[in-house]
C-alpha cells in the first residue's frame, strides 16, 4: 500500500515537472493585452487585442507614431493627384523577417486577397474606398486589373479611389490594409499565422504563441528602423478577468495593462488616484439605441424626450468614474477639423413637453418597455440608473433585460428590442467612421433608422474634395442624427485607460485613436 502510494505520488510529480518546466528567457517587457486573440491574420482580425499584436508584426504603407499621428511606414513618400483620388506610394527598400524584399506587389496581392470574393473578412469594407474594390468583392467585376490598385514596379504602388477620401492615409495604417507574406501563405495554408511560420515586415516577429497563455514577440532584425526598437522581447498576456489582471500588475508581474475592459470598474475611483493611472479620451462612444420600427419609439418626439431626460453627468460621476465626458454627439471630439454638434442635453421640462405632445402626458399610456444590454456590471449599473431616471422624471415603466453577448447581437440584428445599450469605436480618425453607420440599411445601423436626407448628406460629403466643406456637410448630417431624429442617445465618450509606471516606461503618449505602438516603448533607467 505504502509503496504503491509512493509510486503514485512520484508519478504525479513527474507529470507536474514535465508540464511545468519552461526554459525561456525573461522578456524585456510584459503587458496585459485583453482577451486571447482570435487570429493574427491582419486581413481577418477585428478585436483590439488582436490588432495590437498585428500592428507590432506588420507595417502598412503608413504607420502611427506614439502620438497616434500618421507617418510614413513601408512607403517613404507619396503623391496625391489634384482631384484627391489617385495616390502614388513609393516604397522604401526593406525586407520581410525572412529576408525577402517588401515590394509593391506584396501590397497589391495582399489587398487582392482581402477583396477576393471567396475570402472571408469582416472588415473588407475598409477597401471599398478603392475604385471598384466593392464591385470585385461582390463578384460584379471579375478581373482584378480593373480594381484601382496597381504595382507600377517593385517599389511603386498606385491606388485609385472611388471618391477623394481624406482619411485614406489613416486607413493605410489599419490592420485590414497591412501586407502579408503571400509565399508563406501559399506554403502553409491557414497555418501560416503560427510561430515559426509567420513572416512579418513590422518591428517584431512572432517568437511563440501558446494559446490563452502568452504571445512572445521578438524584435525583427530586418525591420527598416530596427535600431530604433528598444524592447527586444515582449510578452503579451491574454487575460479576461479584471481582478487577475490587476493582481498581476500590482505584484509587478506585468509592466502594463493596456485594455480598458481590464480595469476593474468598481475600483476606478481608487485606481484613478494612483500614479500609474493613465487615461485619455479616444474615439469611442457609449450610447443607447432606440428601435425606430417599434411603437412608440417610431415617434422622434418620444426618442428626443427620452434622450433629454438622461442625466449623463450623473452617469459619468457616479458610475464610470474614470473622467469620461458626457456625450451629446455620436462622433467624439478630437477629430481635426470637425466640431461635433451639441446634441440633446438634460432638459426635463422639454422632455415632458415632448412626451405630452406625443400623446403621453406624464407618461400616461406609455407602454412598459425594456432596456436591453449585454451582460456586464457596467452595463447593468448604467441601465439601472437610466431606468430610474426615466421612471422618476417621466413616469415611464421600464424593465431591464440582459443577454449574453451573442444573443444580444442576434437580438439587435433582428430589431427585437425597445431600447438597447451599444458602443462604437472609430476605426480611423474621421467622422465618417461614425456617421456611416446610420445610413439606411447599413449593417451597423441596427435601429431601423432611415432618413433619405441624412443618407444624402453623408454620401455627398464624401465626394467633396474641400475638407472644410466636407466637414460642414457631415456636421449637418450629425445634427439631424443626434438632435432632430435621435434614433440614438449618446451617453458618454470612452476613455482609453492604461496602467503603467511612468517613471519606468516611456514612449507611451495619450492619443485619440488609443493606439500605442509597442515599437515606440522603452524602459527608462
Amino acid at each position, binding site marked *: 500500500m505504502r509503496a504503491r502510494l509512493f509510486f503514485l505520488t512520484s508519478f504525479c510529480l513527474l507529470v507536474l515537472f514535465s508540464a511545468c518546466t519552461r526554459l525561456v528567457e525573461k522578456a524585456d517587457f510584459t503587458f496585459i493585452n485583453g482577451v486571447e486573440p482570435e487570429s493574427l491574420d491582419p486581413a481577418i482580425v477585428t478585436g483590439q487585442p488582436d490588432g495590437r499584436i498585428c500592428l507590432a508584426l506588420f507595417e502598412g504603407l503608413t504607420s502611427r507614431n506614439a502620438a497616434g499621428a500618421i507617418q510614413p511606414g513601408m512607403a517613404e513618400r507619396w503623391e496625391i493627384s489634384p482631384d484627391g483620388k489617385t495616390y502614388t506610394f513609393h516604397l522604401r527598400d526593406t525586407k520581410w523577417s525572412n529576408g525577402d524584399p517588401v515590394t509593391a506587389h506584396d501590397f497589391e496581392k495582399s489587398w487582392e486577397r482581402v477583396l477576393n470574393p471567396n475570402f472571408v473578412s469582416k472588415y473588407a469594407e475598409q477597401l471599398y474606398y478603392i475604385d471598384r474594390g466593392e464591385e470585385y468583392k461582390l463578384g460584379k467585376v471579375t478581373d482584378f486589373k480593373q480594381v484601382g490598385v496597381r504595382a507600377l514596379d517593385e517599389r511603386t504602388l498606385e491606388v485609385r479611389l472611388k471618391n477623394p477620401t481624406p482619411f485614406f492615409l489613416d486607413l493605410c495604417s489599419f490592420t485590414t490594409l497591412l501586407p502579408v507574406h503571400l509565399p508563406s501563405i501559399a506554403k502553409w495554408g491557414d497555418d501560416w499565422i503560427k510561430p515559426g511560420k509567420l513572416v512579418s515586415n513590422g518591428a517584431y516577429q512572432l517568437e511563440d504563441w501558446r494559446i490563452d497563455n502568452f504571445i512572445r514577440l521578438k524584435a525583427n532584425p530586418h525591420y527598416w528602423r530596427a535600431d530604433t526598437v528598444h524592447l527586444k522581447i515582449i510578452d503579451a498576456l491574454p487575460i479576461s478577468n479584471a*481582478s487577475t489582471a490587476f493582481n498581476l500588475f500590482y505584484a509587478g508581474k506585468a509592466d502594463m495593462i493596456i485594455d480598458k475592459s481590464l480595469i476593474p470598474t468598481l475600483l476606478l475611483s481608487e485606481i484613478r488616484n494612483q500614479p500609474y493611472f493613465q487615461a485619455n479620451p479616444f474615439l469611442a462612444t457609449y450610447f443607447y439605441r432606440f428601435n425606430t420600427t417599434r411603437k412608440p419609439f417610431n415617434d422622434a418626439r418620444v426618442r428626443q424626450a427620452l434622450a433629454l431626460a438622461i442625466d449623463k453627468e450623473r452617469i459619468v460621476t457616479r458610475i464610470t468614474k474614470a473622467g469620461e465626458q458626457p456625450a451629446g454627439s455620436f462622433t467624439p471630439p478630437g477629430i481635426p477639423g470637425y466640431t461635433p454638434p451639441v446634441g440633446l442635453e438634460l432638459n426635463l421640462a422639454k422632455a415632458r413637453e415632448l412626451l405630452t405632445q406625443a400623446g403621453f402626458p406624464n407618461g400616461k399610456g406609455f407602454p412598459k418597455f425594456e432596456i436591453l444590454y449585454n451582460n456586464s456590471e457596467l452595463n447593468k*449599473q448604467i441601465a439601472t440608473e437610466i431606468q430610474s431616471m426615466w421612471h422618476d422624471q417621466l413616469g415611464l415603466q421600464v424593465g431591464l433585460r440582459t443577454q449574453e453577448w451573442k444573443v444580444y447581437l442576434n437580438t439587435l440584428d433582428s430589431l427585437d428590442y425597445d431600447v438597447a445599450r451599444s458602443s462604437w469605436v472609430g476605426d480611423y480618425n474621421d467622422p465618417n467612421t461614425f456617421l456611416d453607420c446610420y445610413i439606411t440599411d447599413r449593417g451597423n445601423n441596427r435601429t431601423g433608422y432611415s432618413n433619405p436626407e441624412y443618407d444624402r448628406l453623408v454620401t455627398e460629403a464624401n465626394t467633396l474634395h474641400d475638407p472644410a466643406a466636407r466637414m460642414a456637410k457631415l456636421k449637418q448630417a450629425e445634427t439631424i442624427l443626434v438632435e432632430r431624429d435621435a434614433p440614438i442617445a449618446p451617453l458618454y465618450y470612452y476613455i482609453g485607460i492604461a496602467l503603467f509606471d511612468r517613471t519606468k516606461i516611456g514612449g507611451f503618449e495619450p492619443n485619440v485613436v488609443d493606439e500605442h505602438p509597442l515599437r515606440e516603448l522603452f524602459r527608462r533607467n
Partner: protein
Amino acid sequence: MTSDQPHLLKLPCWRDPSFLACVGFVVVLVIAAIAGPSFTGYRYDEMGPQFSPPSWKHWCGTDFLGYDLLTRLLYGARISLLVGFVGAFVSLTIGVAYGAISGYIGGWVDNVLMRALDVLYSLPRIVFVIVLVAALEKPSNIWITKLGLHDIIPDARLLLLFIGLGLVEWLTMARIVRGQVLVLKELSFVQAAKALGQSHARILWQHLLPNMLGIILIYLTLTIPVVILEESFLSFLGLGVQAPAPSWGSILSESAQYINPLRIYWWLLVFPAGFMALTLLALNFIGDTLRDALDPRSQKK
C-alpha cells in the same frame, strides 16, 4: 403501518444546542427573507450614497450603486432559498421516482437503471446546465411572454435554474431511495399489501413513501446548500439569476471583484459571504445531524 425508524421529531438531537441554533437560524432566515425586505426601509433598487460603511441608517452599508446591502441580502435570501428549495424539490421528485421504480421493479430494469445512474454520476452534469441555460434562455423567454406568464415568472433564467439544477442533483436521492425501497419492499406490511392485491402505485404511494419521508427530508436539507452553491457558481459565470433582484450568488460574485490589494470595502465582502456561509453551514449541519441520528449504526455511541 409500521416503521423501523424513529420519528424525526423524537430524535435525541433536538436536545443538542448547536443543532437547535442551526434550526433557529434557518427559521429566522426564512422569515426574514419573506418579510424582512419590507422592513428595512429601502427598496432593493433604491439608490443612496455609494460605499457608505455600516451605520444605523444602513446596517450592512451600501454598495457601488448606493443600494442598501441588507435589503439586497434579504432579497437575495429570497431568491437563493427559492432556487435552493425548488431545485432540491425538483431533484427530489425525479430522484424519488427513479429510485422507487428501480428498487420496486427490481430485476434487469433495476440493473439497467442503476448502471445508467453510474454513468450519469461520472458526467460533468453542471456543464449541461451551463449549456442548457445559455441555450434555452431566449426561447423560454419568448414562450413565457406568449403564454402570458410574465407576472408569475419574471425571468426565464429562474425557471431554467430550477429545472437545470434539479436535473443535476437527483442522482444521490435516487440511489438512497432505491436502497430504502429494496429493504422496505421485503417487509411484512408491504408483502401483506401485495397479498391483498393493492396496486403497485398504491403500495409505493401509501406504504413505501411515508416510510422514507425521514431520509428524503434529510437529503432534501443536504441538497439545498448544494443547489445554492451551484447557483452562485453559475452567477459567477454570468449565467445565474438576473437583475434587477439579486441572488446571493450574484451579490457574492460582485463581492469577489472587491477583493483587491488597493482597498477593500470589507462590509461588501463580510456580510454577503457571512450570510451565505452561515446558511449553508446551518443547512449542512442540520442534515448531517439528522442523518447521523437516523442511522442506526451511529447510535451506539
